[in-house]
């Protein structure tokens, strides 16, 4: 196992710069996801770590070893590709044994390692099949086994679940995560699916347009996003613009068109500055009676989601917001209600 250190990584193709100045450290045994919209440079970053692309600038280190200029076969990595890239002309067993063979591990020792890893990924009795004779989920497991059997120091996965159906995807999420924990391997995982990143990762890296906007635990990313782009990409968000009225330690009071909102803040803005309050849909509370600090609203739509009820609410400034509550449907379209936001549940974003 080893740490992965990426320093000021830049990758430019002929016409586009795919990644600019990426800095990232993945600790030993840590599971880090790279999350971002399509084309933001996730795959490019991962391929640079794998050695499949030569960075235009910056360095990559595994532990204390500089690998920036090493070809992929000398990096001790395991990689799982989105379409698995299993060798169609080799059986499952020989696919898995491929990396061992390349390292000169043969015979009984290799056979035992292959058998072990096949058991680990729960692929009994598939050894002599060809990849095309396997289901998507089984192919996925073979790809994992093939990457893990050589006991690489770093595991790289590029949207490995994108080709699976929703139920299998859920299952594999937990499977991969628990496998990773058991093996304790340093893992870099690329996805554009936030639920995937949230449930699996120790930390998440959020990228836009080739740059990192935030690195943090799933909770930090969700509750304390670094900027508006991150806030809007992760989950759904209500944003209310205003002016900073008062700054206390860790808290800021924002004066908005609908009333005063007390937010938690990660930085100290100057009084009078323009800013925004982020309120997640489940953070707001609804009631029939107004109380101190609540604002008036009217329900314009109501969706039953099973475990949640999803309301669209128009506030005094004619903006529409989304609030989710647990339990039964208590309000109907047209109801006038009061919306309140507990002060630790709003988050300040600079404009």
């Amino acid at each position, binding site marked *: 196992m080893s740490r992965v250190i990426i320093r000021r990584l830049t990758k430019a193709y002929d016409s586009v710069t795919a990644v600019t100045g990426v800095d990232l450290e993945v600790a030993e045994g840590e599971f880090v996801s790279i999350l971002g919209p399509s084309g933001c440079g996730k795959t490019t970053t991962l*391929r640079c770590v794998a*050695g*499949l*692309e*030569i960075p235009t600038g910056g360095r990559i280190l595994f532990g204390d070893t500089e690998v920036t200029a090493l*070809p*992929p076969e000398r990096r001790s990595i395991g990689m799982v590709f989105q379409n698995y890239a299993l060798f169609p002309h080799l059986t499952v067993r020989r696919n898995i044994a491929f990396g061992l063979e390349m390292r000169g591990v043969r015979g009984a020792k290799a056979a035992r390692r292959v058998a072990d890893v096949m058991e680990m990924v729960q692929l009994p009795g598939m050894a002599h099949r060809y990849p095309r004779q396997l289901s998507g989920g089984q192919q996925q497991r073979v790809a994992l086994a093939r990457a893990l059997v050589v006991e690489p120091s770093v595991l790289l996965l590029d949207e490995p679940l994108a080709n699976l159906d929703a139920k299998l995807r859920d299952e594999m999420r937990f499977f991969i995560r628990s496998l990773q924990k058991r093996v304790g391997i340093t893992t870099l995982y690329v996805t554009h699916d936030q639920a995937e990143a949230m449930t699996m990762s120790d930390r998440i890296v959020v990228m836009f347009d080739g740059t990192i906007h935030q690195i943090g635990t799933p909770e930090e990313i969700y509750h304390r996003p670094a900027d508006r782009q991150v806030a809007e990409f992760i989950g759904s968000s209500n944003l209310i613009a205003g002016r900073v009225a008062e700054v206390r330690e860790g808290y800021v009071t924002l004066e908005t068109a609908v009333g005063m909102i007390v937010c938690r803040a990660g930085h100290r803005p100057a009084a009078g500055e323009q800013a925004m309050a982020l309120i997640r849909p489940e953070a707001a509370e609804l009631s029939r009676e107004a109380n101190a600090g609540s604002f008036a609203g009217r329900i314009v739509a109501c969706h039953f989601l099973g475990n949640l009820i999803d309301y669209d609410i128009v506030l005094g400034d004619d903006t529409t917001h989304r609030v989710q509550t647990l339990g039964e449907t208590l309000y109907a379209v047209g109801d006038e209600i009061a919306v309140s936001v507990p002060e630790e549940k709003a988050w300040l974003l600079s404009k």
Partner: protein
Amino acid sequence: MAAQQVGPRNATWLLGLPGAAAVIIFVIVPYINIAVMSFRVSSPSRAYDPGFTLDNYARTLGDPLYLGVLWDTVSLAVIVAVVSLVLGFPVAFFLARTRSRWQSLLYALVLSPLLVGVVIRSFGWIVLLANNGVINQLLGMVGIGPLGLMYNRLGVTIGLVHVFLPFMILPIMNAVQSIDPRFEEAARTLGASERRAFFRVVLPLSMPGIQSGAILVFVLAASAYVVPELLGGGRVMTTPTFVMQQLLGTFLWPFGAALALVLSATTLILIWLFTLLTKPVMRGLT
């Protein structure tokens, strides 16, 4: 993906060196040589005499006999291309759209004449078209003939169409196959009859295939040597047969080179004109 991005240490281009070298040395250099040769002074006793001249081109372009041969060759090639298109399009369309389980056999049957040598196919036509050949014998039974089917332009045309028809069928077939059948269905739902859907949708969309098939057949027919020689029996003169006569019979190399280059230049100009003329129908298709 095919795109290998293993950067500067990627030396795959080196793999192309033997191929590129072979073609440059044995195709490009000889072509340059022949182009230079066409400006040499012809000599009856050796490859060429010293000095350079435009005489060969002057002789070629000033000689009504050769211009006649050139015209015959080009018109023959155009006729062959048109006939091949008329015969080939329905077959290509059928092959592209049929769901018959014989489809791959039918495809192989189009392909295989291509793989049977030209000489053998000309042979077949000689047996069929000769004065005492199969067709004239059959006609004789009903009291017709014998007709002169061979050793004239008719025979050469038949032979060339036969030899090059697959080159018309294959590109058109590929073009039709890549047309989504839903385009036709959409046209039908919009009120077009089957015929109109064909002429307004399928035909225009298969133009790229028709264009490449036509160019291919035209070029191949204009530079064909074996078929005119065998089915023309020396009585149908085309540029390639004429050039071969000059080269093998009289050894006037520089003159032969000029003749061959004039034919190639003519075909290139005609292809250019043809693409220019078909450009409006090709808009948005390639």
